[in-house]
């Protein structure tokens, strides 16, 4: 007897066309074709073994296996490629999915449900990401999650609260500045502590004499080396 494939963790991207059901069928067809083209371009450099593409009534779902960074990249590219006349929002999470039976029966799982739920909250050209995705991104590439900032909380139909994030490149730059400041402070503190300790032992004048003697000796040695 064939066993049911176990659940795996994947990054699930729900690319959703807002208000899809209310649009005329001609527009629906156009938007759908546009979305498929944009996604085809965005996933062109992704291995076929690394992604599963699913149909939804109002969008497309992409399940990416083992590479949250690639999933985020593809999501951003799709939204950018589809910017011309394609209203598109995306919900991204990292959760459990599993194949739904044999012969290409599709996928099911909590990951898909969560991504679908938050995609409904994402406005046009917006990407909402869950904390689970943020954790997966941090696990895959520590530091990459720094560009994600809190966007609020969403309680789903099962009364689970999801902390939501969106991407803000300024957050990564701000983190860089914070680290630079912390580094400068740390250097000053450690060197200053060493100097302070010495001053406390020898007094300020003694320490100044020692530094000046050391500098003079250093300058003399340098001059001799250059003269030679």
């Amino acid at each position: 007897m064939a066993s049911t494939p176990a659940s795996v963790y994947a990054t699930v991207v729900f690319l959703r066309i807002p208000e899809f059901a209310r649009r005329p069928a001609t527009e629906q067809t156009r938007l759908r074709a546009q979305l498929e083209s944009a996604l085809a371009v965005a996933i062109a450099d992704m291995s076929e073994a690394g992604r599963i593409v699913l149909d939804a009534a109002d969008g497309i779902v992409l399940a990416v296996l083992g590479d949250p960074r690639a999933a985020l990249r593809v999501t951003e590219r799709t939204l950018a490629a589809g910017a011309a006349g394609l209203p598109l929002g995306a919900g991204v999470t990292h959760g459990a999915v599993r194949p739904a039976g044999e012969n290409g029966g599709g996928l099911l799982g909590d990951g898909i449900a969560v991504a679908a739920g938050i995609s409904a909250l994402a406005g046009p050209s917006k990407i909402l990401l869950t904390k689970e995705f943020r954790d997966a991104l941090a696990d895959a590439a520590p530091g990459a999650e720094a560009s994600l900032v809190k966007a609020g909380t969403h309680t789903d139909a099962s009364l689970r609260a999801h902390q939501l994030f969106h991407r803000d490149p300024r957050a990564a730059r701000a983190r860089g500045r914070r680290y630079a400041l912390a580094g400068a402070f740390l250097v000053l503190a450690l060197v200053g502590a060493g100097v302070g300790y010495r001053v406390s032992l020898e007094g300020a004048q003694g320490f100044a004499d020692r530094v000046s003697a050391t500098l003079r000796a250093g300058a003399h040695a340098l001059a001799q080396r250059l003269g030679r």
Partner: protein
Amino acid sequence: MAAKTPKRIGRYKILGELGRGAMGVVYKAEDPALDRVVALKTISLAAADGRKDYEKRFMLEAKAAGKLTHPNIVTIFDFGEEDDLAYMAMELLEGTELRARMREGTIPAAESVDIALQVAEGLAFAHEHGIVHRDVKPGNIMLLERGPVKIMDFGIARMRHADHKTSAGMVLGTPRYMSPEQITGQPVDQRSDIFSLGVVLHEMLTGGSLFAGQDVDQIAHNVNYLEHAPPSRSNREVPQMLDFVVARALKKDPAVRYQDAYEMCADLRDALAELKGRAPARASDETERTQTLKMEAGAKEAPLAPAASQIVADTRLPLSRQFDSAAALERLEKPSRNDRKRLAHAPRPVGLPRRIWSDALPRRLFAAAVVAGCLGALAAFA
């Protein structure tokens, strides 16, 4: 035992019986005043509750329906009552009921859309005049030999559902073509007819029964909760656009359905143009036609593609037909040892050592701290 055929009803001379239903009989009759052959639909008033009200309602409905003159609606010439019979004289149609045509097999997509379009045009006209059919179904759609499609039985459905009971207590009307609001007894408007037409269109395209069930309760449950599979999943001839038309007509919530039949007509016209545009290529390729039929058998198991708002943890989404996902699915079904390790677990929290090792900024900060610490120690102790 069948009741004896009367010789005359009102001024009409009965020529023969055309059909018999739960509420009455349809006769072929002659109008001697105009020397015209008509179809005379009779409804028995004997079992109607509140007969006076019922008669009044019948007259009102028949009068309203009689005002509808449209190429896609059967013309009503006259109505009246005699003894325990209410009758309606209408245009006699020579053709095939859509129900009979559907029994012969799947109707080609272009023909299905053409039929649905004509029905939608007739409904749009009726809705514009404030009349909701309430019983749109293949049995009420007549395909004429060389002419338009005609909708029959306008104005009768309301009386059937609201006021009339049979002695056996059986359900009248056709639950599997009813909209969710209609089957649950809520007020209906033109959007209910649009839902019913959506069911008819789906069945024409797929050849199956969309909301079939063993009893009315089961059908009602299916109408209210069962999401349809896109027709293109079982009939490759159906363009994606037609999937969208059917999906919109079959929305459970009337607020997101087509709001009027004209809107649906516009989409059906576009779908028909698309189908006609590619018809010659299809017709010449008999091999492809055979392949289509082969796919129909297996396609019944194809999962649905629900909208984001309807997806829960056990909702399965079908694979996209535009992208090949076989390699990744194979990877899930037969995972390598590495995949078992990587994909089977939730993300690990990133600890300080890994953070320093893998994240450039903490690594630089750590290096700066080490260097500054050394300099500080040098200053303190050297």
